Structure formats: structure tokens, C-alpha cells
């Protein structure tokens, strides 16, 4: 029985792994093809089935004058905007979430849960609803087509995610831990920074992961709020599209743009399995 279980377990894990990895392999193989190899029927193995070429990749790094799109600038723009906005969102979101979890706010009929919902309700609206207000805000601040403007907008988009995840996280951290810290001589700020925060790393990592993902994949606002000076990766990649869909460079672009997320996921996963709160409450 345990043998059968082990076999089935590995069988399904391998099956799932194939399911996940196959598209990547396909993308890698496609990225080294040219027009003829892509349209000439299903082929997978380079050299044997088709002649590999670097054309698909080189388009990504060639300047516009040579028919390329040069993603290096937008790539670093995307990394900078996503990381900065995520970091600020996590810091502000964690502070807000702690307050919402531990203190009681009341203004008429508005209570803690309503405030929490207010945060997340920002994400209920389709992005297009926000596009005009954001455009007007940024233009009146003179921040259209700038990294600062994008960061500002992304904080608005990402902080609700951070708040939501962290409120839920803090609600699971026993209040008695904070109270014990107070009794043991911490003022409320020390209790937060010395005791609550060190134990919140797992929650902050999860929130950070979500912020980075949602920031990285955004196309809509990056498209609406930038023109020529500043461009983010997803917008730049769209410039690849022409009368003939260049599947080879699209595959290369897909691999390049998914790479940071894979790295982040691996880092976060390692820390997630390490930290836990199980010792706090029995």
C-alpha cells in the first residue's frame, strides 16, 4: 500500500512537472526558429528537425533603427518600477494592516472591516475605470510618462493586495504576543518592531510576491500612462507585433519577461518553508 502510494505520488508529480515544463521547452525551441521553421509543421529538436537561429533573440536587443525593439531599457524600467512600488506597498501595507488588525477604528458606521474592504474594493473596478482619473491626476502632477508617476499608480494598485494579505496574517498572530511584549517593557512601537515584525516575515514575503507579480504583469496602466520617454517591458514587447506575428521573438520575449518571476518565486519559496509561527500558540 505505501509503495503504491509512493508510486502514484511520484507519477502525478512527474506528470504535473511535464505539464508545467513542456510549454517552456516549446517556447525555448520556438525562440530559436525562423519563419520557415515555425510555419513548416511541428518540429521540436534543434539541428535534427530544424536549423536553430538567433534571429528571434537578436531582435530584442537591436535598436529600432536596425528593426529591433531593444528591451534592455524597458526591462530595467520594469524592474525598478515593480520593486520600488512593491517595497513601498509592503511597508505602508504592513503598517496599515497591523493597525487595522489590532486597533479599533470607528467613524459613524465605518469600522475596521469597512476600511479593510475599502482597500480591496480598489481592485474590484476594471482598470479602465481608473484610467481617466489616473491620467488626469498624473498630468496635473506633471508625472505622465515618468517612472515616478508609474510608481505612484502602482502603489495604489499594489497596496490593497499587501493590506489584505497582511490583515489576514496579523489576525492569525495571537494578540497575546503583542500584549506580552507590552508587559515585558516594550512601548507599542517597540512591540511592533521587536516582536511582531520579526514574526511577520512569512506574511510579508507572500504579500511581496503578489505585489511583484501584479506589478510586473501590468500592461494596461503602463500603456495608458507612458508615451515615449519611459516604457515598461510589457508595452515594449507589443511593439514586436507586425503584419506577420513573429512567434520566435515573442517566445524569446516571453522567456525573458517570465525569468525574474521564476527567480523571485524560488527565493520566496525557500524562506516560506523556514519561518512559521507554530511556536507562538500551541
Amino acid at each position, binding site marked *: 500500500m505505501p509503495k503504491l502510494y509512493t508510486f502514484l505520488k511520484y507519477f502525478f508529480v512527474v506528470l504535473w512537472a511535464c505539464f508545467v515544463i513542456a510549454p517552456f521547452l516549446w517556447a525555448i525551441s520556438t525562440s530559436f526558429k525562423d519563419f520557415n521553421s515555425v510555419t513548416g509543421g511541428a518540429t521540436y529538436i534543434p539541428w535534427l528537425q530544424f536549423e536553430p537561429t538567433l534571429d528571434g533573440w537578436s531582435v530584442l536587443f537591436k535598436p529600432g533603427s536596425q528593426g529591433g525593439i531593444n528591451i534592455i531599457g524597458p526591462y530595467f524600467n520594469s524592474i525598478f518600477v515593480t520593486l520600488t512600488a512593491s517595497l513601498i506597498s509592503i511597508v505602508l501595507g504592513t503598517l496599515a494592516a497591523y493597525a487595522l488588525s489590532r486597533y479599533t477604528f470607528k467613524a459613524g458606521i465605518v469600522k475596521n472591516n469597512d476600511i479593510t474592504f475599502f482597500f480591496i474594493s480598489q481592485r474590484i473596478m476594471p482598470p479602465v475605470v481608473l484610467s481617466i482619473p489616473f491620467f488626469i491626476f498624473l498630468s496635473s502632477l506633471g508625472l505622465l510618462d515618468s517612472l515616478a508617476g508609474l510608481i505612484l499608480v502602482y502603489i495604489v494598485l499594489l497596496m490593497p493586495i499587501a493590506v489584505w494579505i497582511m490583515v489576514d496574517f496579523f489576525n492569525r498572530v495571537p494578540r497575546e*504576543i503583542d*500584549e506580552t511584549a*507590552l508587559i*515585558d517593557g516594550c*512601548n507599542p512601537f517597540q512591540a511592533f518592531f521587536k516582536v511582531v515584525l520579526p514574526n511577520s516575515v512569512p506574511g510579508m514575503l507572500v504579500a511581496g510576491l503578489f505585489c511583484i507579480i501584479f506589478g510586473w504583469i501590468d500592461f494596461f496602466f503602463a500603456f495608458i500612462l507612458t508615451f515615449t520617454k519611459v516604457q515598461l517591458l510589457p508595452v515594449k514587447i507589443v511593439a514586436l507585433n507586425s503584419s506577420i506575428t513573429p512567434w520566435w521573438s515573442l517566445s524569446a520575449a516571453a522567456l525573458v519577461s517570465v525569468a525574474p518571476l521564476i527567480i523571485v518565486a524560488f527565493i520566496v519559496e525557500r524562506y516560506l518553508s523556514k519561518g512559521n509561527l507554530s*511556536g*507562538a*500558540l500551541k
Partner: protein
Amino acid sequence: MSLMLNHISFKPTEEYHLNDINLRFDSGKMYTILGRTLSGKTTLLKTIAGLQTPDSGSINFEDTDFLSIPVWKRNVAMVYQQFINYPHLNVRDNVAFPLKQRKMDENLIEKEVQEAMEKVGLIGFESRKIQELSGGQQQRVALARSLAKKAKILLLDEPLVNLDYKLREGLREEFKKLFNVSDESNSILIYASTDPLEAMQLNGDIIVIDEGKILQTGTAKDVFENPATAKVAEITNDPAMNINKCLIQDNSLIMNDSVQIQIPDELKTVPNGKYLVGIRATDIYLDDQGFAFDVEISEISGSETFLHLRNNNLKCVATIEEVKTYNTNEVVKINFDKSKIYLFEESGDLRHSPYQQ
């Protein structure tokens, strides 16, 4: 030196959590707050610690207004019912945390931590992670942290209730020893419990609380022998004392029309009328000539059997000094130890105790 609570009330909702509490705690003494779940024990401890601000009343400690001092400056220690430690620190750093917070000298911290760890039997566990410890060990860490502080007020909120039976018995013994030792430090020790047996064993002054009100204070013996009200008698006995309505008429005590007992001599001075009669479960015994009751539930507890009995509307719990399985609805004949009968007024106040002279 003493801690005085004057007219403390706390009413966050429609119900009082604390209702006009007046208490005095003296240094070097141990107090047990005995009450059921949600009776206000934890709220009272949190109020003393400063985690909760009462709506009205005042607290004085060493002639200072305690309520004006924030929690982190009050020099109290508290151990919770849940095992609360700092999960990101190892055992040693957990115990040292309050001392480091005071910016004590490192060498002195080391000495105090060692001392506290020794008291609770945690030597050898210094560098363990909290998550690697069993429940009992985690609670020892919490206890060591509160002892290391040498706080003037030590609050223990049902510290043993989440431990298994064996461990609880063992730790309770150690608690008693610990408290005797810490008497020298002249701290006030306040222990909250739901368990009457535990309260009696700890042998401190008992404070009975229910629905946020103090019902009685006194020594364990005093509260056991002369419960001020029927409610106190229920709270301070496990199983709860059987309280039933009764009628005293012509030297006999009638419960529910069906049970009639000749009253003992010392009760003969009580005028006829309606009362509440209280009989401990241990003062009910099996008797072939006794009254017939139906068994509703029978539960075996250690070397005893608790019988939940019913005779029409009259319910009572009896402790039988043997382990025996009874079937539901089986008829048993029982009698009441007349010399151990308590009598309460209909309002609940004690009218007669078998221990009264």
C-alpha cells in the same frame, strides 16, 4: 505595600465585564481568582496589568495611581493560558527579553536568566527554538520569563489549563514550591483558575468572581465551608454543589414534593418557608432505603463515578466512591447526608452551613 482596586467597573457592551470591584492584594501573598469561563478573571488580570482600561474606578499600588502608568512601565509579569512566547527567539533570549528591554547589564542578565531557567527546570534547553518544545516546556519558558523579571505583581491566567493531566499535576506542585520561594521577593501573586480543586490546593486567599462581580473573598477553608451564596457554592465545588428549591415545614425538608427529609437538630430553629438547599455531590450516598432516582448520565472519573440523577423535576449529581457502570434510566436509591446540608435563602444568601458553630 499593597495593590488596591477601588470601584473598578468595565462595561464595553450591554453587560458588565467588571462590576464595582473592590480588592486589596498584599505583598508576599498569593491570591486565587476562582470563577467560571467568561466570569471576568482575565479582564481583571488585564486591568491590573494595564492592557485594559476600566471605565471607572482607581487602582493604587505603593501609593501611586497605577492607572496613569502605561503597561510597559508597570513592572508586572503575566503568564497566559495559551503558551505565549516570542517565536523568533530561542529559549534563552525569550527569558532574557524583558531584562534586555530594561537595559540591564549583560552579566546580570545572564545570571538572572540562569536562575529562572533553573527554577523551572529548563537547564539544557537554552538554545532550543520555541517550536521545538512541548506544550509543557513552552509554558515553562513563559513562566521563567515572568520569574526572571522579578516583577512586583505576577499574574497567572489559568497557566495549567492547556496542559495534559500528568503535566498539570507536576507543574502545580512546582508552582507551590516556586511561590513559597518567591515569597521572599515580596511580590503579589495572582492566579486565575476555573478549577476549585486547584484553587484549594494552591492554598492562597480565594476570590470568587462571577459575571464580573466579586462574590466572596477569604481563605480556602473559609470559602469551602461557608460559601456566602448558593452561586459561590456552585462555583467552588466540582462537581458543582447541588442547589435545589425546597420547603421547610414542620421539621422536615421537602424537595419537589417527592423527597422528604427529617431535618437535623441544628436546623430546627429555622422558620418554616421556602429556601434553597445545597448538598455536595460527595454527600449523597447509595442507600437501599433511600429515594429512587433515574440515572441520566453516569461518568467515571478516576476512582469515582459521577451520577447525574433525576426524580421528576429534581436533578442532582452524586459522587459514588467506586467505579461502576450504570445504564441510562437505571433506577438507583440514594440518600442525603443530613449533617452536611446547606441552606440558602431564596435570594441565595447563606442561611445555614454545617460548619457553623
